[in-house]
């Protein structure tokens, strides 16, 4: 299995997100992180419209569905495989 951690943000953005049965869930548009002792740690991937909305408008407004990082199984090729 490929190393799970991505090396750069650009590697995540635009990737197709699929579940283990290969069903497409969307594309990564934004990543939500939290501050931890001065570091920024990613905890969610936000897809499609919700992600674009966050990218343009930032925090606030209604919550959208997101993929928690723990659900990410692997990052083969140009995909993100999640388990749900």
């Amino acid at each position, binding site marked *: 299995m490929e190393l799970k951690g991505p090396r750069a943000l650009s590697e995540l953005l635009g990737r197709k997100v699929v579940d283990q049965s290969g069903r497409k869930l969307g594309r990564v548009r934004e990543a939500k992180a939290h501050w931890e002792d001065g570091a920024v740690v990613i905890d969610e991937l936000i897809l499609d419209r919700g992600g674009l909305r966050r*990218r*343009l*408008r*930032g*925090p*606030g407004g209604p919550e959208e569905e997101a993929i928690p990082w723990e659900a990410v199984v692997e990052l083969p090729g140009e995909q993100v495989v999640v388990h749900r």
Partner: protein
Amino acid sequence: MRAILKIALGIIAAIGGFLDIGDLVFTTQAGALFRYDLLWAVVLGVVGIAVYAEMSGRVAAVSGRPVFDVIRMRMGFGMGLLALVASTIVNLLTLAAELGGIAIVLELLFDAPYGMFVFASAIALVVIAALLPFGGIERFFGYGGLLLFVVVATVFHQNPDWGDVGRGFIPSIDSSTLYLYFVVGVFAAALMPYEVHFYSSGAIEEGWTEKNLKENRLNAIVGYGIGGILSVGLVIVSGYLFHPIGVQPDDLGTVALPMQGAFGETGLLLALGGMLFCVGGAAIDSSFAASYNLAQFLGWEWGRYQGPRKAPRFTASWLVFLLLGIAIAESGINPVDITEYSVVLAVVALPLTYLPVLLIAGDRSFMDRYANGRIATTLGWIYFAVIVVLALAAIPLLLATNAGGG
């Protein structure tokens, strides 16, 4: 008194930037073809540019971020790059058209070959930009452009049927494609994107902060108001003189004819002089806008206030853009034709410029209590919708009407 002097920023953006060769030509043609019928489109465009200029100036003053900075930040690299390429093409075409315009006016004043004047005017611009500080450049072109008030005097001298003029301000839609093309053209010429690129960067050149917000609003209203009055005047004088006898103004020289008709040589010289400053100011604006955009997109140090030593890439890019502008202008393409294409292409670049401005200006995390209020938000989104519709209509109209050639 100081407050009056400070409005110069708005005035140059309005006169030197707003009333450029595109406006001069489009408004005169609009008057000749449709008499006063398109006055409403002129007003629509002026209010639009005032709304967005105010917004971009406010964003720059509060957050210190000019328009292309905001574009890269919000639209990201890919869309930002698209906006950069589109804006740069439009700005370069505009610059070339303005350089050509300066040369035409000089040709009319001094009767020497056009090609020579393109070079001479570009050199004059370099000298002016190198010697004068940013504020001085603004005032030089802004105050010079006020000579064009002779247009307003001409309106009163002609004393048109004011009822007819008044009816022109009521929006009307004629189904002919030529009419629609001119609606798009007049509107787009008013909202040329380089105006906000230049205006917002100018706010940072001048070191604006929250304290300058009142001035910003005044600039947008008074400055673009003046530009609007002059545009309206141009439509009226042209509609009054040219429409009945069927003149088709295809040249910059024709724009000055009504003023000669009213006030003889004095009127002519005032009109040509005013046009020279306006077009010259627009050449400065569009060339600076091109380098501001590039530098801001790539994160370079930029600004006339930094001087060439602190911002060498910015300065070098400005010179390169100027050279490219000269090359296009010298290629012998009629500046008026370049203008028509650049104005219509500009509409396509407009949504990419104005959406991020609108988003940031409404973003409380950035703008805090200076974020867009209800009026600015409403007007902003209404105009954005209009821009998107026109952007979609622009290219088919350009092709269908053969660039207004009928």
